[in-house]
């Protein structure tokens, strides 16, 4: 009897030892609870000219160089697919003020247009689908700085857009972007306000490559001879850069000018080559 009593005590003590021993074992691995949920739509702040719901993170600077050349389909040999024609180049700087608010400035070589723009992300799609869509408001004011004997107010134009987007199946980003462009100078018979519902999409072919398209159907009154602009191309992202190679009907890089000035019809073969370089810096 005494033997069994002692043995039981020993057994209990050994059990206790084992339990205490577990105190010194490897810590239990626990996931950090406040992990960032990534915004999942689009790689760039603009497709080829159309603003997206992709917002720069706070303190990120995006430097953009946009190019569009002459028509690739006229005087093919003489102009070497339009590359001999002077390109319209826009140099832009956009900065993430907060994770939802960015502002930028750019200058285009055509008409020496300087533009100021800002975007605010009201809703951001989350990768866990707790927010199913992204919604961003964008405003842009542009001024023609080339000397043209016009008063300054006639050189001003603006654009306001409300951008709704959604990523589907993890590989297809799609956006609808009602927008209205306003021009102060209507003396040449141009329309003052032009309305469009911009459409944009990005199909992710791989981690590095995606197909991108954008379209600007104009509704209501439009400037005489203008056509709905379309662009399609390939994006290549490297983590810090996004290179965009595309064909587009429009020379312009600003949405209000695309709506008001594009006279080329993509589907009739009037398109040009363009490329953009986006470089992200963490400041």
């Amino acid at each position, binding site marked *: 009897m005494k033997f069994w009593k002692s043995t039981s*005590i020993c057994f209990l*003590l050994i059990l206790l030892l084992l339990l205490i021993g577990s105190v010194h074992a490897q810590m239990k691995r626990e996931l*950090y609870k406040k992990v960032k949920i990534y915004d999942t739509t689009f790689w760039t702040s603009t497709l080829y000219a159309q603003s997206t719901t992709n917002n720069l993170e706070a303190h*990120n600077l995006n430097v953009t160089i946009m190019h569009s050349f002459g028509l690739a389909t006229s005087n093919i040999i003489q102009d070497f697919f339009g590359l001999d024609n002077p390109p319209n180049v826009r140099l832009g700087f956009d900065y993430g003020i907060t994770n939802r608010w960015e502002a930028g400035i750019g200058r285009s070589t055509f008409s020496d247009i300087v533009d100021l723009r800002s975007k605010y992300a009201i809703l951001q799609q989350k990768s866990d689908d707790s927010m199913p869509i992204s919604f961003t408001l964008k405003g842009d004011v542009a001024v023609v700085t080339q000397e043209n004997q016009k008063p300054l107010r006639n050189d001003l134009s603006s654009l306001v857009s409300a951008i709704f987007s959604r990523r589907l199946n993890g590989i297809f980003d799609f956006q609808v972007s009602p927008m209205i462009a306003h021009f102060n100078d209507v003396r040449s018979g141009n329309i003052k306000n032009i309305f469009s519902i911009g459409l944009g999409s990005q199909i992710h072919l791989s981690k590095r490559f995606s197909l991108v398209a954008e379209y600007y159907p104009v509704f209501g009154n439009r400037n005489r001879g203008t056509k709905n602009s379309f662009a399609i191309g390939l994006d290549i992202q490297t*983590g*810090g850069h996004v290179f965009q190679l595309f064909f587009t009907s429009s020379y312009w890089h600003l949405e209000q000018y695309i709506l008001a000035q594009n006279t080329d019809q993509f589907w009739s073969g009037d398109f040009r080559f363009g490329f953009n370089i986006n470089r*992200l810096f963490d400041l």
Partner: protein
Amino acid sequence: MFRFILSYLFIWILFPAAISAQSFKSDSGHVEFHSTVPLHSFTGKSNHLVGKINLADSTVDFYVDVHTLDTGIGMRDRDMMETLDAKEHPFADFYGKLDTKFNPNSFNPQEVTVSGKFTVHGVSRQISINGTLQKTESELQVEATWTLNMKDYDIKPPSILFYRVAKEVDISISSTLHEIK
């Protein structure tokens, strides 16, 4: 005989109370890595390194949730998570022992070597790391650096167009561990 065994076990049960006083822990250590690509380099950081050192049995235990690593550019972070297969393998961790003696009564920095199992991307390898330990009244300051070869852990260095991120990544940690009362 039984009295001897009982006494021995009692001593062992009481002893951990003493050694727990030599345990230090933190969940806000700093870890960073430095990665290079031609003409460019970048750093990823996390301030959520969890670590525990037990001076009594010389165990060293650190881990970080790789989702907390931040390179400053979201697109690059997303790339990194895919490269590390973070959904499947969310932790990078080290579990090992101090190889060198550490004097807990000295407040001077002491060079130490730890050996153990480092795991990332679901692959574990036995490694040795040199670092510094410095004890204060109730804290233990840890600093260490080492170089990780991505291929050793089946991590495919991300390619950027025609070139790849260097396969060797410099890692450093620093943490102030607080005594477990």
